């Protein structure tokens, strides 16, 4: 009997073995601040059976929403929004909810690995010391101009560190890219603000205080810029004032999840957006008896109506709505910016806002607050710059490429030739936490921690009226043998020695972050203040960041915008297919959610399709093509061909087909790999005037290939039995 292990002893042993409570990074950064303690010596605030909550920042996209993560006995159990964080005020999206499936993903890269040959899944595990040596050698044995960094949109602290590193080394600044930024056309938005208001920055659309919103393609309730914040604003638009319900009109050729919420959906022909905006502007000026400003003087209402396939009466009706509204607001976005004349559309929409005098006013257009620790909004690379970067790789001048936080092999159009260019680079080191396509083409993968295991901060680009720095801290001990990329780089720099080592003398990631945060101690208007950096860091962790209590949006003048001259024309299209191709970011799984099974199984909001790629075709068009639901069609553009199952979508123009972006992975783990198709394979590398990818400028042909592949969908389907799993 004495030999038996009592239940209590068993629990003790299990507790020590399986997980320790509450405390942060074990052997990683800041182990001098936090230590791994046994179960029997818990911190005094931890009780068995009670949860411990940590404030951190979501890294599923770059919006920087604050999270509160519930943990118990060293496991992260649930993410909720951080009610303090001004970006999301306690709310999250579906991706934020399932971020735990990334953390505990069975396909994570568990150790630093070396690949025998690129593309091969046969790898050898390394230890971290030799991994750091590889990085140190790469930094010291190559000339600075032979080193390149490619970074994702999050996290910002690592981007800052790499920026400092490259500056000290005399190498080129890191290039920053992300598929969401590409589909949001961020360069176009920034350029348009500069064109129209004379100041570059990310526009802020005050949806909540408007009473009429015209959205030209902006999918602001899905993945666009800061969807959680914009959904809250949308709520305000509809219900904040009991006496009036804000009205919402969406212009797009395929009804998106956002468009489905609109009171009026205007299926304008792709490419006609600029003409429509200017025509509405002209009609608004006439309705309000304003002298016709230069900006709208060239607009031709009849020609615009014809080009857009929308009646003149409809345009007049919309213009009278806009002219008579108290706080009208127009938003450019989505496919409207992804045409060859996307910048013209953005410019025209901002001019339309200027026409009704809402620039810099409540319910109108501002520039987003500039985040703490930065002088201005620095946009990610547009496609033009990415194309230059690919050319640089192709030239063979780059000997070592570091990649973190982005999966360009999957995200960039194939026509850019990135994979080919990467083969010219001698050494590629990926810091990916997941076995994605880019990691598969790398020689080494030195996996970073998951966002919930990491220190960091994110400079919030837009979504809040105040200037916000969202803070991240580890909520659990790293689950696998991963290491913070910042620590790897800092250690490698010290190993490499020389001037670089003395320029970046930081013990670890946290010390680097503190060196940045220290400038905020003396900053006015912070919602907390602290006398010195350790107290400041403690508050920063406790509240999940630092933000101002003031409205930091930049109010501009729109008067110059009306004096610009527009010579708008319809957009140009590539290829001679019969259909306009509209690729859109899948609202639920977005660009990187495909490896999370609950996101895969969450129904698409408008089609209810799960786990795969579909192509949306108008039922009338489908009848002409002789295709039914679930027939596989091949879609061919001048850049490539993909195959996908048909979904008969009643709310799309008959001359347009639409495909979600987010599936079609050739790697990225068991839930993503070999599933669906990637519409980026159909895109050419043509850009709009601001250098952003003209992703909505392809014409494609559609051909039935005589196969059927049943789509799993939530909505009822008759006669499905025995059909699944068969081609």
């Amino acid at each position, binding site marked *: 009997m004495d030999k038996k292990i009592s239940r209590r002893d068993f629990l003790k042993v299990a507790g020590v073995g399986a997980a320790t409570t509450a405390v942060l990074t074990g052997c990683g950064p800041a182990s001098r601040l936090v230590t791994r303690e046994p179960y029997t010596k818990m911190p005094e605030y931890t009780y068995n059976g009670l949860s411990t909550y940590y404030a951190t920042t979501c890294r599923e996209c770059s919006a920087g929403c604050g999270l509160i993560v519930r943990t118990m006995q060293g496991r992260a159990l649930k993410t909720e929004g951080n009610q303090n964080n001004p970006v999301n005020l*306690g*709310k999250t999206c579906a991706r934020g909810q399932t971020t735990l499936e990334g953390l505990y993903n069975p396909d994570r890269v568990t150790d630093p690995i070396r690949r025998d040959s690129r593309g091969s899944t046969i790898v050898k595990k390394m230890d971290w010391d030799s991994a750091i040596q590889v990085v140190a050698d790469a930094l010291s044995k190559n000339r600075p101009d032979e080193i390149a960094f490619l970074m994702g949109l999050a996290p910002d602290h690592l981007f800052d560190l790499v920026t400092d590193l490259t500056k000290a080394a005399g190498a080129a600044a890191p290039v920053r890219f992300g598929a969401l930024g590409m589909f949001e056309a961020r360069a176009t938005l920034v350029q348009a603000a500069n064109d129209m208001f004379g100041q570059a920055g990310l526009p802020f659309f005050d949806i909540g205080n408007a009473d009429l919103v015209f959205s030209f393609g902006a999918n602001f309730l899905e993945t666009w810029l800061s969807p959680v914040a914009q959904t809250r604003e949308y709520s305000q638009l509809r219900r904040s004032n009991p006496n009036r319900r804000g009205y919402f009109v969406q212009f797009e050729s395929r009804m998106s999840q956002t468009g*489905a*919420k609109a009171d009026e959906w205007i299926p304008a022909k792709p490419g006609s957006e600029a003409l429509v905006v200017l025509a509405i502007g002209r009609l608004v000026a006439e309705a309000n008896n304003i002298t016709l400003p230069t900006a709208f003087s060239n607009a031709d209402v009849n020609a615009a109506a014809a080009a857009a396939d929308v009646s003149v009466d409809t345009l007049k009706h919309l213009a009278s709505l806009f002219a008579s509204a108290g706080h009208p607001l127009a938003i450019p976005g989505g496919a409207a910016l992804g045409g060859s004349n996307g910048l013209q559309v953005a410019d025209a929409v901002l001019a339309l806002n200027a026409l009704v005098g809402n620039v810099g006013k409540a319910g109108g257009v501002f520039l987003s607050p500039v985040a703490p620790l930065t002088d201005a909004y620095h946009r990610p690379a547009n496609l033009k710059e990415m194309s230059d970067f690919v050319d640089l790789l192709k030239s063979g001048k780059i000997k070592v490429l570091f990649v973190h936080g982005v999966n360009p092999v999957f995200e960039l159009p194939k026509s850019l030739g990135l994979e080919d260019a990467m083969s010219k680079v001698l050494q590629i080191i990926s810091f990916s936490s997941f076995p994605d396509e880019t990691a598969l083409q790398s020689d080494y993968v030195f996996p970073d921690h998951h966002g919930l295991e990491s220190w960091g901060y994110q400079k919030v680009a837009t979504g809040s009226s105040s200037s916000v720095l969202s803070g991240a801290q580890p909520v659990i001990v790293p689950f696998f043998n991963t290491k913070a990329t910042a620590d790897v780089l800092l250690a490698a720099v010290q190993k490499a020695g020389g001037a670089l080592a003395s320029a970046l003398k930081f013990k670890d990631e946290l010390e680097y972050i503190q060196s940045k945060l220290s400038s905020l101690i003396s900053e006015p208007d912070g919602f907390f203040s602290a006398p010195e950096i350790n107290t400041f860091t403690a508050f920063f962790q406790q509240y999940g960041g630092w933000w101002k209590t003031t409205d930091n949006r930049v109010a501009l003048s729109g008067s110059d915008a009306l004096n610009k001259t527009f010579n708008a024309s319809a957009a140009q299209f590539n290829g001679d297919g019969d259909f306009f191709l509209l690729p859109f970011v899948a609202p639920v799984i977005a660009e990187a959610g495909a490896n999370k099974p609950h996101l895969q199984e969450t*129904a698409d909001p408008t089609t209810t399709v*799960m786990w795969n790629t579909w192509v949306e075709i108008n039922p009338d068009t489908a009848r002409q093509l002789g295709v039914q639901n679930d027939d596989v069609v091949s879609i061919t553009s001048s850049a490539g061909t993909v195959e996908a199952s048909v979904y008969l979508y009643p709310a799309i123009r008959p001359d347009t087909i639409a495909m979600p972006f987010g599936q079609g992975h050739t790697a990225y783990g068991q839930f993503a790999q070999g599933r669906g198709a990637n519409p980026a394979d159909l895109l050419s590398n043509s850009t709009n005037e601001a250098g952003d990818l003209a992703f909505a400028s392809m014409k494609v042909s559609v051909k039935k290939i005589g196969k059927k592949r049943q789509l*799993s969908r939530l909505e009822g389907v008759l006669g499905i039995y025995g059909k699944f799993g068969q081609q």
Partner: protein
Amino acid sequence: MPKELQSPMDSANPAQDVQGIWGMTIDQDLCTGCQACVAACSMENNVPFVGEVDAGYGRSMQWIRIERFWQGSYPNIKATPYQPVMCQNCHNAPCEPVCPVFASVHSASEDLNLQVYNRCVGTRYCANNCPYQARVFNWRDYMDPRQRPELVTLSNHWNPDVTVRRRGIMEKCTFCIQRIRHAEDTAASENRDIRDGEVVPACAQACPASAITFGRINDPATKVSQAADTSRGSHLLEELGTIPHVTYLAGGA
């Protein structure tokens, strides 16, 4: 009738028996169909994923689904306002009288539908009788890491407050009863009533549009009672007389 089968509204002395009736409003004007509630519910309540093939057969297990229907045809087409549907926690619940083993029972004190997993033998009569199709059935051992190796790591985030269900068990939305019980225990230990807003189910907590309100609908002072008491409120399939505890606020103009 045994007490747990009685409804508080049948009680001779409701003031004494009723602790408070939980209910919910869903504002369809605000719901953007973003699926945050669906994901939040699944993560909170250990709802399994079933994979593409089973999902295609209609075996996906989410406790909430967001319905949308099309009205009209192109170009005069509209999507009906998104409608999240979960267990409506009916007062006269059609699922209850058909259960041969009393797995689907009624809480007399709170007018909730309870599902007792360890009584359930999987006859599926309740799902058959539910007019809202709110119940989901475990066709396989979806939560067994021995059968699904991918769950060995994924199971680390499972909520210890919620039972993991196995094959042959019927389940449904519980109004996050673990959160209700937690709040009730806290209130009891502090010798006070539950405050309005103290219980927030996972769906309502996540909802970026704040379309979901939860609370006690028998107290006219709560937010949820006030939200439900407008001209916009209605119940799903009202004509069946199930008296659901979820009120939908009409969307659209």
